[in-house]
């Protein structure tokens, strides 16, 4: 039995790769221009809905207000659950905001 085991372990085997083929092919996009500074800017803080995210962003909003008195932080929870799109809010941010921080809790 031991001999059979040793022979089996020496025999070379070829096997197929079990993994699926990665497919991501995205068009490369550029980031929006960065700001010179946050002074006087409106910064949205968006909670996507996972637990703890809103409370964490609330702490961040408080820090922003204290550290940058001229910054206008806007804290919002996106509409719908975390898996759904919210184009109205994205449009609002584009129109009225200078920067956005998305918070994903959980």
């Amino acid at each position: 039995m031991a001999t059979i085991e040793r022979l089996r372990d020496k025999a070379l085997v070829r096997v197929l790769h079990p993994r699926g083929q990665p497919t991501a092919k995205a068009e490369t996009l550029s980031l929006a221009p960065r700001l010179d500074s946050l002074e006087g800017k409106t910064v949205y803080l968006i909670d996507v809905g996972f637990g703890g995210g809103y409370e964490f962003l609330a702490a961040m909003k408080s820090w922003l207000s204290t550290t940058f008195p001229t910054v206008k932080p806007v804290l919002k929870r996106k509409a719908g659950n975390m898996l759904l799109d919210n184009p109205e809010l994205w449009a609002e941010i584009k129109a009225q905001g200078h920067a956005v921080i998305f918070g994903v809790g959980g």
Partner: protein
Amino acid sequence: MDYVARDARCHGLDLPFTFTPHPLVGNDQSTLETYLRGNDPATGVPILEEIIQALTKSFPKSRQPVETAKQRLPRLLSSDNEANLQRLFVENGWTDGLPIILPTEERVAEMLSGTSHDRDEVVGRMTITTNQEKLEYTVEKVAVNAVMAGARPEHLPVILAIASIAEGSMPSSTTSFARMVMVNGPIRNEIGMNSGIGALSPFNLANSVIGRAWTLMTINLGDARLGETFMGSQGNTTNYNNMCCAENEERSVWEPFHVEKGFKQEESVVSLFLGWSVVNSMGAPNRRAAHEETAIILPAFPAHTSSATLIMDPLVARGLKERHGFESKRHLARWLSENVKIPAKQYWSADLVYAFVLPLAEQGVEPFASWHKLPPNELIAHYNKPENINVIVVGGETNPLWQTTDFRYTRSASIDAWRPKNPIPAGLRMPRAPVDLTCRGGACELPPASGRIRPDGPESGNGNSGAG
């Protein structure tokens, strides 16, 4: 950091990320403020400094270019001996932790005899994450994972049907989902699936390997990688074979599940379910009827999609129909929808409801908006969609018990679409379970189970009389 690279590859945008200690949920405000003023655990840089830098021109312009595509994987791995290949599969995270059958060319070729579809045909794309990179897989890739699971060619049509749905058995979620595979139609008996005694226990080859194949596909074709894409905090033992079984259509007094979903009785169909929780009835409906007992169990679940699935021994179904007048599964679902109620305060305090239902209530979506205005002790019939309450009949009639789950039905797929044009001869199919429980009316075409070898001689009972 792998997550950041993967995200960039998917979306073509190298977004700046800052990580906090995890989890955030369940911490008090002072802990969250400590996290905020602390360092990003991935980079060691203070979180606030990192965020301010990311928003302003101090953010570095020249970062790594976004990698928008990966090279094609080789079809074959390098030759090696069996022991080293087993080790390679384990160390690369390509298994479920159990030994696998190595997918040699010969074994995969034999497996492919279980379908008439071309080995290069694309079956689907899958990821266990949300909005992240999907892996593409062919019939051959499915066959490779079926071999690894210990499946036989006759199981392949069921496994391909599962693969065609392109849902992972282990979603990325930190909440550790449970899943269930349910098979209906003639193929149950043709391949010897167990829908009777112990259908949900590990005895039956087809039940075991089909359910296991789904998880191996999830790992290898859905990119489940522990701590990278799969983040289930505790994990879920159902995922070893995903409660794979067949509905006991022959003993059920009600319409089979796949017929309820619009398939013909003679079609073979696989259906998938998703949830977290399974609660045994912990006794027979002896002093309280099964529907009333279920109405006591169901309020424990937040039911944020009004979903539940009852897995019911045929005896329970018969009792509900003959003694309590539930003529159909739908009839029972309607009764539960109307009679299961919890106080508004209990409902709105559930974390899942906070995450998924509260946003709808705030948007004015009914009935949630109205429920949100109710006094705390007002009762809500939170299983408000009876069509989302499923009933499946499984079991061997040794005791009228049932299992109440919070599972929601996700999708069904035709198994017949993946069958070979020339059926696999019965003699080439694998033996069935050690006891002939499922072959009724000769559907499996196999001879009765025989030649069982017992170490202590002729059959003399198993010494375990059980409690009945």
